[in-house]
């Protein structure tokens, strides 16, 4: 079966225990695991999209309002830019990490947090506006799905901001240890992934909803 059986073996030369095995690379192991978590998070969004797809027919809105009546594309475009800029700021914090510049990393994260807060603020304002128009998740299945998708994303942004706060503290307190650097890379992937998900939400929920 395996060809290893067929070669004659010299017992003095065969390697049975690995002497030079240096163990795994902790940063790569951490970031790979976190990337898998992110992908499973992507599956969470995919399932919500599937639900949204089923619940975005005209009869799904029952007799209530449809997205075309309450979505404001340009308002949400500003949200989009806030999020993209926040991701860019975090990217710059990671380029500062290359040289080990604490100030660069911290400035980048703070900028990223502020822009994230702008995104959340705009989102809350938008939700309050819609609620005041009577567009609530209890009105119809379609609106339930609309809120689920957009607010689950907002919840991710909120969690990311708490994480940034923790990272600010850890960078200041502990410097760039292996754990901290691994977390900074994981957070980068998390944050960038939120921008990817937002592209789908913006185009398929907001823009498409506005169209139809």
């Amino acid at each position: 079966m395996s060809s290893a059986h067929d070669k004659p073996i010299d017992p003095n030369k065969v390697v049975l225990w690995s002497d030079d095995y240096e163990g795994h690379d902790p940063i790569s192991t951490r970031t790979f695991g976190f990337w898998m978590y992110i992908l499973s998070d992507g599956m969470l969004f995919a399932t919500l999209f599937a639900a949204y797809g089923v619940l975005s027919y005209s009869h799904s809105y029952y007799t209530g309002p449809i997205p075309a009546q309450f979505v404001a594309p340009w308002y949400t475009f500003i949200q989009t830019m806030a999020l993209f800029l926040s991701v860019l700021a975090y990217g710059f914090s990671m380029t500062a990490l290359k040289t080990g510049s604490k100030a660069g990393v911290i400035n980048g994260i703070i900028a990223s947090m502020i822009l994230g807060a702008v995104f959340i603020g705009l989102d809350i304002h938008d939700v309050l506006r819609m609620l005041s128009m009577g567009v609530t998740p209890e009105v119809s299945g379609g609106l339930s799905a609309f809120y689920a998708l957009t607010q689950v994303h907002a919840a991710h942004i909120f969690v990311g901001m708490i994480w940034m706060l923790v990272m600010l503290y850890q960078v200041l307190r502990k410097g760039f240890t292996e754990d901290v650097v691994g977390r900074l890379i994981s957070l980068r992937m998390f944050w960038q992934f939120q921008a990817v998900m937002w592209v789908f939400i913006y185009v398929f929920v907001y823009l498409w909803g506005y169209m139809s």
Partner: protein
Amino acid sequence: MLVNVPGPWSPLLGRLALSEIPYTNPILAPLFVVIVLAGLALIAAITYYGKWGYLWKEWLTTVDHKKLGVMYIILGLIMLFRGFIDGLMMRTQQMLGDGPGDNGLKVMGAIHGYLTPFHFGQIYSAHGLIMILLAATPLLVGIMNIIVPLQIGARDMAYPYLNALGLWITAAAVVLIMASLFVGDFSHNGWFGYAPIFEMAYSPGVGVDYWIWTLELVALGTTLGSINFLATVVKMRAPGMTWGRLPIFTWSAVSANIIALTSFPCLQVALALVGADRYLGTHFFTAGFGGNLMLYTNLFWLWGHPEVYFVILPAFGMISEIIPAFSEKPIFGYTAMVLATFAIAGVSWIVWLHHFFTMGMGPYVSTEFSVATMLVGIPTGVKVFNWTFTMYRGRLTYTSAMHWALGALFLLLVGGLTGMMLSIPAINYMVHNSVFVVAHFHMMLLCIVYAVFGAVIFWFPKVFGYKLNEYWGKMMFWLFSAGTVLVFLPMFMLGFMGETRRLDWPFNPHWATMFDIQEVGIAVYVLSVFAFLWMIYVSIRDRAQHRVGADAWGTSRSLEWLTDSPVPFYNYAMVPHVNARDEAAWRREHGFSEARPDHFKAIHMPNNTGVAILIGALTFVIGFALTWRIWWLTVAALIITVLVMIYRSGTGDPGYVISAEEMEKLDRDSRQKMPEDHIQHPHGDFTGGTVTAYSAGAADSLTQGTPPSRPQRLS
């Protein structure tokens, strides 16, 4: 936003009230007393023997993958027993309640049998949920937890702390579902739930909420575990352990965990949306207001079907380890086996609609899902043939583990062929929701249970250092198999006769004989439970006679059989260098099975932590508080959980280092614990002429420096 609940609610206790405790129920109240007394006795015993410190240090705070695996298995066995008792109650209800008219025992207000329909509904819902998610899943995850790092030559999982977290969150789910017995009630709408019965209007109690949060916790724990397994296999393999040399069980663990990682989020979303309907008043799955009932069924089975393969694939992997070991041949068709595993995993994603063929989406969709379902038969057939060809002309040893593996093969055949029948929509329309379907999937799930028992017996000596009693293992096998035949053959027949599933009152008097036979089967199952307990007792009592060396069976094949039995906490004193597929067999063939490392290096190990069990406890509190709508407790527990996680992230785990000298001493001690003559070849006196390939005692050739003669092969 929040939905108003019917009945009383207070800010402090939510819906919780003394009246929610069913102390008047003649089944639950005595059970509760027994459990409290047993718990008190256990606590007294631990205190008396002064074992609290041991328990805390060695088990509750451990991050050792083997101990976590053992705890997973214990958890799974306890829940298997609980699920079995549920099954026993269902069988008894149908036996007693059969026939027209008023035939109840007049207890607890039952008109038929001895259970009210509401109580019966809770029992079958709990039975299904427990057996699939809280018995099968922990058992499989536990065995994977123990074996996968050993099979790839790693010291531990990639994230030992996350591993502990996964266990304790699963344990929280177990505690939550057990709490539903004594505080409030459990869901009564089937283990997978039906829209819109689980909506607030139709299920105003807390049962459905228990169900939601139990499932959410299990899903969370399993997702964390799957990330850990995949990262471990990808990043932590020993040098020389290439993908082509990965043992089949590890391959099946990889494929199963890919399924878990990708599918459990769907379950979390499906249940979260049910939660949104019940707590926030949304309309995802309501009958009116633009909701869609079938969307729930779709989202649930989107997870549910891959989940079925998540539990069956590791079972296939176990069979693939047991059969070669006791056939003394390498697995037949390694590559085909791996490809078949991944084919099953891939196809598992495009078949979920066959759980609701009757939805009414028309012939095109049905055709796709029907054909895809039939496709599963091809890789599964490949596997069955590979196992058969592994045994063909092998030197078979009928140990109890082998009995279970062969039994699993037979059940797979029955379950698989009935599955093929069900994959045809025309047949499916006829038997949909009948007990024929129930009997079919019990064949598949029992195939898993058989594989698990086989695996537990097979790997038990590796973990504990002594074998389980073979006689009682076989006795349990035959009793269990007799029970299976007696319960499920009548069930197949009843399905054809038109018995729908979940009948608390099977009215047809002609079915009475069948129900009686099933009840006899359950009684035989009870005997097998006693045989199991007796097997454990006898094995522990006689453990001194059954101590084993590294290669416990004398014919084992994969890497885990190189290290000592019981496995020391560091797994391998020196990380092995892998030279072949089936490394243990390769070393035995070439006379290296006695070889031990002659020098050592310092190693780095993770510290124990109490954080994991604390977070597990907090997730239970969150689940319980959400179930009873105690908002302050939910928020408080959530905030504390986040703070604990941040605290843990701040402290991290520097681990500790064991020096090379210490390693040498540990290795010597570990070796001394094993019996001297540790290769126990089952065919020691076999003189058929072709034995050299696997005979012991070739260690001499290592000291003499001459290569052993090239082994003759059997096939």
